[in-house]
């Protein structure tokens, strides 16, 4: 009755998913970068910020780690337009809302890895930097952070890989990324098992590529004392 799987894949599924794949990449790459930037900023503020700043950053992390991502995605897309400040409100298109939601959520988790990395660097390094006449800010940004980031990188990479998969949630606010496209194809063809198993393979491929890129990054940043353990 129905066409064989490979025929279905070639003619219908693969072309559809390819489009979804590009949209996914369009969401994943900016939100991963946003997540890293927010994570580093929040992590540094949580360790070295003044008390009120530290408190604010802690609140951000509690809020975004403590609420379901679905709720956050809905918030940015559906609720944000209702928040009017001075008669002005922000309406995001679905992709923008998804990027913001994933970036903010990812940043909260990233900041925890960065915080751990920062705390793993001995206080003496800061003391030595200050003793040379650096400001605290210089000591943190040019001495402690580069070392902390190397220590945090495996964790940060982990979070990016996780983000690749939760980017599928963008489909619930009408973004036609991988999962959204796959759902549509599955509905239209009634071939759920084949479509979703194939979808799984696509994510596996994305994650494999990301893991390889992260490994390249670890190698590029590797210096004696901060190597990636090898077998």
């Amino acid at each position, binding site marked *: 009755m129905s066409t064989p799987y490979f025929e279905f894949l070639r003619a219908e599924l693969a072309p559809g998913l390819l489009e979804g794949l590009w949209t996914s990449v369009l969401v994943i790459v900016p939100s991963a970068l946003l997540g890293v930037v927010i994570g580093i900023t929040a992590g540094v503020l949580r360790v070295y910020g003044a008390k009120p700043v530290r408190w604010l950053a802690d609140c951000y992390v509690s809020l975004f780690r403590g609420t379901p991502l679905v709720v956050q995605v809905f918030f940015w897309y559906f609720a944000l337009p209702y928040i009017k400040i001075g008669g002005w409100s922000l309406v995001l298109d679905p992709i923008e809302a998804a990027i913001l939601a994933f970036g903010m959520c990812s940043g909260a988790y990233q900041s925890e890895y960065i915080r751990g990395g920062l705390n793993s660097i*001995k206080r*003496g*390094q800061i*003391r*030595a*930097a*200050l*003793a*040379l*006449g*650096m*400001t605290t800010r*210089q000591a943190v940004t*040019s*001495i402690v952070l*580069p*070392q902390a980031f*190397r220590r945090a990188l495996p964790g940060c990479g982990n979070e990016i890989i996780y983000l690749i998969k939760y980017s599928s949630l963008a489909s619930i606010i009408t973004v036609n990324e991988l999962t959204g496209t796959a759902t549509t194809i599955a509905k239209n063809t009634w071939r759920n098992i084949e479509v979703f198993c194939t979808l799984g393979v696509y994510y596996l491929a994305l994650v494999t590529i990301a893991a390889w890129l992260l490994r390249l990054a670890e190698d590029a940043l590797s*210096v*004696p*004392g*901060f190597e990636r353990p090898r077998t």
Partner: protein
Amino acid sequence: MSDATKPAVPILEARNLIKTLGGNRVLDSVSLAIGRGKVKVLIGPSGAGKSTLLQCLNFLLPPDSGQILLEGREIDKKSKKELCSFRQQVGMIFQDFNLFDHLSALENVRVALMKVKGMGKLDATERAVAELKRVGLADKASLYPANLSGGQKQRVAIARALAMDPKIMLLDEPTSALDPELIGEVLSVIRDLAQGGMTMIMATHQISFSASLADEFMFMEKGRVVEHGSPAELLGKGSGSRTQAFCAKISELTGEAGDGEAGACRL
């Protein structure tokens, strides 16, 4: 400036430093003054406040009260700018080196030249190479701290401090974390510095070595300077000083009685 008219303004002067840590008075009204080219050595048992004093002197640990003057000018510890420029002029050497682990030896020496002094990369590199050469590590410039021995790390740390052209160096037990066979190379760099006229305040347990360099010994105990004077005075036979008793004990413990330490104690 009335100070400038006086013949010899001390390079660094501390007045009545008090520091309390965790309810303990670690520094109890300590004062000192050191003139250009002089070498002061702090000795005393662990917990006497030597490290705390050195760290208070450049505000790494801000003293609870007291004043610090550089060439007769009091440092306003509330002004970040003043603090940074003061610290540039006061080099500090730590017991555990505190090299920046992600930077090569060359970059360790260069980073503050670029970030703090605003030097260009070429000039900073040239200066850093010169400083590494001065401590005998020209050939190790590209190595990272993880690949350097303890003695080499401490020499890089000294080069890093010297590159900032400090007016005075504070050395906090520079050889205490080193294997015995590596101590010599660091001491010889310190000796060269002293002979080159560098003003230094050094906390150390290397009694015989420091006795040969120091203009003054300061013996600290429980946060106070209990005795001070020339090494010859304090270590002289029959001086009955606490310093003498203390260093006799050290030489007994290190088992080098007769030659090294005890020899110095007899002076």
